[in-house]
């Protein structure tokens, strides 16, 4: 089997038509000359016509074949010459992709099985002096011998996590480049998803990328989140479906093992499922869609906290805008007026939202109240300008997509506190310490445009329900990802057991997708960890050669089954046919020259 390393050069085969075209052009009527002895010429032409036709045909064939040979040589033809050919000692990096997407079942067989089969074939060709490093979906580079590698690969199962192939190749490139061997090569055996390639340095080693010649159709749950983050009388789950399937599928929401909502959607749809919770407290849910060829991305786990509406007391110092907005929230059942969180321009109660007093002379009094509560929070000088407010505390309230940003025109400088929830002009604007949230501006129109904007009411909803009444800490992670435990939590507890935090308060997200609750030392729930697949693994479209070259450099090549066998170990199993084709072209040129000059030599001899 012959393949070509420069297949674009084969376009030059069109030039093979040149001799034939010239032949037909030569059929034009030539200039007429008078010649009385035409009768002798006629006789001669009649006698010689058969020989001349044969000669012309032979020349046409020779010239066409000559051009074809030159073009084929330019395309750098190579041929398989069998397996087991000797090769120089090679440092081989092998990426065996058992990421989530490898679990796809196509034509009754897992993609991973095909990848493993090819990996065993590659490992089987290793020689004694070669060195091997293997990377799988866990991202760990393993230096192994041939037998260990065979066992490792045979034991592989799809992991519900993402493998960044670009990163894996770069890791291996560093490793093999340091090896004291003559040749360095990296082989990537993967479904080569387009989404699996991060940008970075190009590879110095030769990279061969192989993928099974199959393609799966997939539909996935790309995300599901609860709205709002804390449900009171009702809530919603916003679901996004992805993939390349055209077929609509059922989407079901299950809470506590019971289906509570259902819908139908296609890949690419975004749907909202309304829920009326019946229980209070933390609950684990899952959004499921119909099974398809790739099962590992058909579920999305989410945690929901259902709580009573926050109780809020508004003091006159908070301003009229705040009072009216909380009344609206009270009418909507999002808050209950009276007791609970106090919203004021002074520190009152254990959970308070404090704004600077309108009278600047009272700022000192406020600072004394804060100090008296043992807080480090302080209100500084008042400044005017125009700043954009942004930060975690405003998440879900404002965004560029929502049409704009909160503008702050007047604010006090803030200092101290445990956490900065929002900043204006790069300086703290909303700060929390204990149960106190201090905002640098009064929520009035000459301080900020927030009170007259559409997101003022949602902002207060978040402020009192999530920030002041108790933070809902929900952390999203992919399997195996490092996660920092929230304050007060010591472990994450899931259906398959608990994951203890380390000394630095971090855990590794479990490999098994699901909802894991952060639990404190006293057994209280401090938040939830949602472990789900990476939606990029659900995109099964393969990468193309252009992207590969752009990511890894020009030494990276996409290869098929035969090309991999041929190109492996620097093309040890490959015979370069360029020279034979050139020699053949040379021989054809010589024959052409002889045939073309045959008539002339005959003439000279006879004359």
């Amino acid at each position, binding site marked *: 089997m012959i393949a070509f390393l420069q297949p674009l050069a084969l376009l030059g085969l069109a030039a093979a038509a040149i001799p034939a075209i010239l032949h037909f052009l030569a059929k034009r009527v030539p200039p007429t000359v*008078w010649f009385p002895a035409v009768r*002798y010429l006629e006789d001669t032409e009649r006698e010689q016509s058969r020989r001349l036709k044969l*000669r012309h045909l032979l020349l046409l064939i020779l010239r066409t074949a000559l051009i074809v040979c030159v073009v084929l040589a330019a395309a750098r033809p190579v041929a398989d010459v069998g397996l087991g050919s000797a090769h120089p000692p090679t440092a081989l990096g092998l990426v065996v992709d058992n990421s989530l997407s490898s679990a796809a079942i196509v034509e009754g067989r897992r993609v991973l099985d095909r990848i493993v089969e090819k990996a065993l074939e590659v490992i089987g060709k290793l020689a004694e002096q070669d060195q091997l490093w293997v990377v799988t979906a866990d991202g760990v580079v393993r230096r192994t011998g041939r037998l260990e590698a065979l066992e490792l690969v045979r034991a592989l199962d799809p992991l519900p996590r993402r493998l960044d192939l670009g990163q894996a190749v770069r890791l291996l490139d560093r490793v093999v480049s340091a090896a004291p061997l003559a040749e360095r090569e990296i082989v990537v055996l993967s479904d080569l998803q387009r989404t699996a390639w991060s940008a970075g340095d190009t590879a110095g080693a030769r990279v061969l990328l192989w993928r099974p010649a199959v393609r799966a159709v997939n539909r996935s749950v790309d995300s599901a989140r609860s709205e709002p983050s804390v449900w009171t009388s009702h809530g919603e789950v916003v679901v996004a479906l992805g993939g390349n399937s055209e077929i609509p599928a059922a989407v079901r929401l299950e809470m506590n093992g019971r289906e509570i909502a259902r819908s139908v959607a296609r890949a690419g749809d975004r749907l909202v499922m309304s829920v009326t919770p019946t229980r209070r407290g933390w609950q684990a849910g899952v959004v499921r869609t119909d099974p398809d060829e790739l099962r590992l991305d058909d579920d999305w786990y989410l945690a929901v906290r259902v709580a009573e509406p926050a109780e809020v007391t508004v003091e006159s110092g908070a301003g009229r805008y705040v009072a009216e907005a909380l009344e609206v929230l009270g009418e909507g059942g999002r808050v209950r007026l009276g007791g609970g969180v106090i919203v004021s321009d002074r520190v009152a109660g254990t959970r308070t939202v404090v704004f600077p007093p309108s009278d600047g002379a009272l700022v000192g009094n406020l600072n004394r109240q804060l100090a008296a509560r043992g807080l480090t929070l302080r209100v500084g000088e008042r400044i005017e300008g125009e700043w954009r407010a942004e930060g975690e505390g405003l998440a879900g309230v404002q965004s560029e997509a929502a049409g704009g940003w909160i503008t702050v025109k007047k604010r006090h400088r803030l200092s101290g506190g445990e956490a900065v929830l929002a900043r204006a002009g790069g300086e703290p604007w909303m700060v929390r310490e204990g149960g106190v949230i201090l905002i640098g501006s009064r929520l009035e129109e000459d301080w900020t445009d927030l009170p007259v904007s559409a997101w003022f009411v949602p902002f207060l909803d978040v402020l009192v329900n999530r920030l002041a009444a108790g933070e809902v800490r929900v952390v999203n992670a992919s399997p195996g990802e490092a996660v920092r435990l929230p304050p007060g939590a010591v472990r994450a507890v899931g259906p398959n057991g608990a994951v203890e935090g380390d000394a630095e308060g971090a855990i590794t997200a479990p490999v098994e997708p699901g909802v894991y609750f952060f639990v404190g030392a006293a057994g209280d729930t401090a938040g939830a960890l949602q472990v789900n697949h990476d939606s990029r693994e659900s995109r099964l479209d393969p990468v193309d050669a252009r992207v590969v070259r752009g990511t890894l450099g020009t030494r990276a090549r996409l290869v098929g089954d035969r090309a991999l066998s041929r190109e492996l170990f620097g093309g040890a199993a490959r015979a370069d046919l360029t020279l034979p084709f050139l020699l053949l072209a040379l021989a054809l040129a010589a024959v052409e020259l002889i045939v073309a000059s045959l008539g002339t030599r005959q003439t000279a001899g006879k004359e």
Partner: protein
Amino acid sequence: MTSNLARPDLFDPYEVAQLGGLELVAWGVVEGFLAGLHRSPYRGFSVEFAEHRSYQPGDELRYIDWRVLARSDRLFVKQYEEETNLRAMIVLDASRSMDWSGAERRLTKLEYAKRLAAALGLILLRQRDATGLIGFDEEVRSVVPARSRTRHWWTLAAALDAIRPGGGTAAAPALRRVTDLLRRRGLVIFISDLLFDQHLALLALQYLRHRGHEVAVFHVMDPVELTLEGQPEARFEDPESGAAVVARPRELRAAYSERVQRAIQNWRAACRSGGIAYHHVTTDTPFGYVLRKATSRHARV
């Protein structure tokens, strides 16, 4: 070189033709040719032996046949046929194929043939042979009856000068016409490029031969017709018949040359078997060479 300056018969025919009209050129050629004869061992115009007769007083002693005297002891004198008894007819092919030259500085076949005919006519008339002319193409175009007067040459020359290239070639009628004009045995000089049916022409020539005439054929060719030169590829068209062939000279040159030589050999062999003198002449050959070849092969000329 010096001698050649006085020998226009040895000049390049084209160069000689530039010296003047047909008459002047033929005259100069013949003068040079005859002058050359005196310096050669060739004895030239021997008269033809006719019969013996008894010696009569007054006969020149040089004509006594001494061999017969030795054998029979009787005096006989050799009697020769007088030159004026010969009647010659020059038959000139003036077809369109004759009006062609393969090079710019070369006479066409017809121009060459006309000058050759004039020179031959002058030589014959110098011997007091009655000489006539028939010019033909597809039919007989001009006829000059044979006369032996010296001034007749001017008539011949004018007739030759007046001959213009015609259309096709029909040699047989012209040769048959010769039999009407030559009642007695004579000499027929046939000048042509022989680009016509060989079989018919040979029949006519052999018919003349059977009638007792001596026949000499001058086969005139341009050198290019021997070798096939020209452009890499061309459509070769016969100006006379209109037949055309597209050919590449480089590819066919050898075979063509072989074919032409074969045709010449065929003519030569056919003429020889019929007792006909055959002379192949190319238009770049000096007239003197042709005349010498002709006179060496044929006593009458």
